């Protein structure tokens, strides 16, 4: 790693929803520490409700942790950091009353980009995700995969060094997800952004990540971090390689017991579901 400075530094983060004794009390994260190097793509994977999305929101300043600290580029996080961090959410975060291009430009308006620069940057971002022809469509007129491409374009146009992606392809079918994953790998190899990517999919994690952080069941903490030593952009053939299969199997082995635990938790009476 060229720089010793971590882009994101998570130290001893705990998070709980509600107060002890309440019906909806949930311990989402317990003593989680993680360094994400500048320019790397880190996947967070774990059973449902393990707090991986919560950690992502805490990293991005959308939530304050119950305990612990997060630093982004050396500065403690106290709220959203629109100049440093852009989000891509699971789905339907595009404003339905705006066209695709308006959505992209509005993000830049919020961020404070001058009016004259917005149009060119929006066009560039839409071209990068292959949605140039759909700039004037409304989100409802697009397929799920195209909507996520548009959300990615909105995030890219903000030109932040860090991208946080919360199961961005989670609601899509396997084939669409595969193509979007390949395209994302190409895009990101060019941009050299620091990316944290939450996913449920073992294959997606291995295909995209430089490192994969595997979470334990709730209260989540990082069980192990696995390195995927394969240059970007990843080629489709990578999926059929022995290396891919072996890494995927290793992840499966780590996750299997945690998923069992999570399923038992979700049927136990004293815990609620993790709020979205």
């Amino acid at each position, binding site marked *: 790693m060229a720089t010793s400075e971590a882009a994101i530094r998570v130290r001893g983060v705990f998070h709980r929803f509600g107060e002890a004794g309440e019906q909806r009390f949930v311990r989402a994260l317990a003593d989680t520490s993680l360094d994400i190097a500048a320019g790397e793509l880190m996947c967070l994977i774990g059973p449902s409700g393990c707090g991986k999305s919560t950690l992502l929101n805490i990293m991005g300043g959308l939530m304050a942790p119950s305990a612990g600290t997060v630093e982004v580029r050396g500065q403690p996080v106290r709220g959203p950091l629109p100049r440093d961090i852009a989000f891509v959410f699971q789905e339907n975060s595009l404003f339905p*009353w705006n066209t695709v291009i308006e959505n992209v430009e509005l993000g830049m308006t919020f961020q404070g980009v001058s009016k004259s620069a917005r149009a060119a940057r929006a066009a560039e971002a839409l071209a990068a995700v292959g949605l140039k022809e759909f700039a004037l469509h409304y989100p409802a007129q697009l397929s799920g995969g195209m909507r996520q491409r548009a959300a990615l374009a909105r995030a890219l146009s903000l030109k932040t060094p860090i991208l946080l992606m919360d199961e961005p392809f989670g609601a899509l079918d396997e084939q669409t997800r595969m193509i979007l994953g390949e395209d994302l790998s190409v895009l990101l190899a060019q941009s050299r952004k620091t990316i944290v990517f939450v996913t449920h999919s073992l294959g997606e994690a291995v295909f995209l990540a430089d490192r994969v952080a595997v979470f334990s069941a709730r209260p989540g903490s990082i069980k192990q971090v696995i390195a995927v030593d394969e240059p970007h952009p990843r080629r489709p053939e990578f999926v059929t390689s022995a290396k891919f299969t072996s890494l995927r199997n290793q992840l499966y082995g780590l996750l299997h017991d945690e998923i069992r635990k999570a399923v038992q938790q979700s049927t136990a009476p004293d815990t609620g579901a993790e709020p979205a």
Partner: protein
Amino acid sequence: MAGKGASRLIQAGFLVGLVVVWYLAATRWGVNRLLLPNPVAVYDNLFDILRSGEFIDDLQTTLGELAAAFAISATGGVTLGYLISRSRYWIEVFEPLFAAVYSIPIILFLPLFVLFFGLGPASKIALGASISFFPIVINTIAGFGHVDRLFVTAARSMGASDYHLFRHVLLPAASPVILTGLRMGFTTALLSIIGSETLASLAGLGHRIVHLAEAMEMARMFAYIVFVVAIAVTLNAIVSRLEARGKRD
């Protein structure tokens, strides 16, 4: 399979049939002319009313009351609704309260309004504003209070200020519901103002209709009813059109 043209034809045929039955009842079947005037006489009276322009004063009174009442309830309802919607707690307090008040017939308080504001336009304005306030405030709370959290989170993550959030997220998310509330408020204001004019008033279209009924000028009274119906249908069509246009933008 009946197309849109066919259903329009049936609707028109139904209305024509109604007028024919009315005509036959008045001329052939011996219904008392004081109860049911000849539609031809009604038509003549309507023509006379429109040509002489005698309706203008009453129309001005009624529309003036409507405009004032709606301006008050729209401003008050949207402002108060927005303020309440800023807090989950206030929504929980006021939403059921307003819904409960909305379900009682406020027209029952007309005598009180007359005592407070007199027989003139002021009592009609106060009543119309009170009645139309509720659908507007309820819809405004619903509109602003139930904006998808993800939109707000996404906007905040991109650095949206409070103004940005209101202008680009809350307002467009809420406006379809608020516009529906405004249309409902407008319609109820119109109905309650004309209704209250028939009960206790000095002027206005409702007042004129009751005055003619008391003078037993049934044909002219029916002509005024036709006139008021036409005004109400036109106003509702305009407001519905504005609502649809507002939702499209």
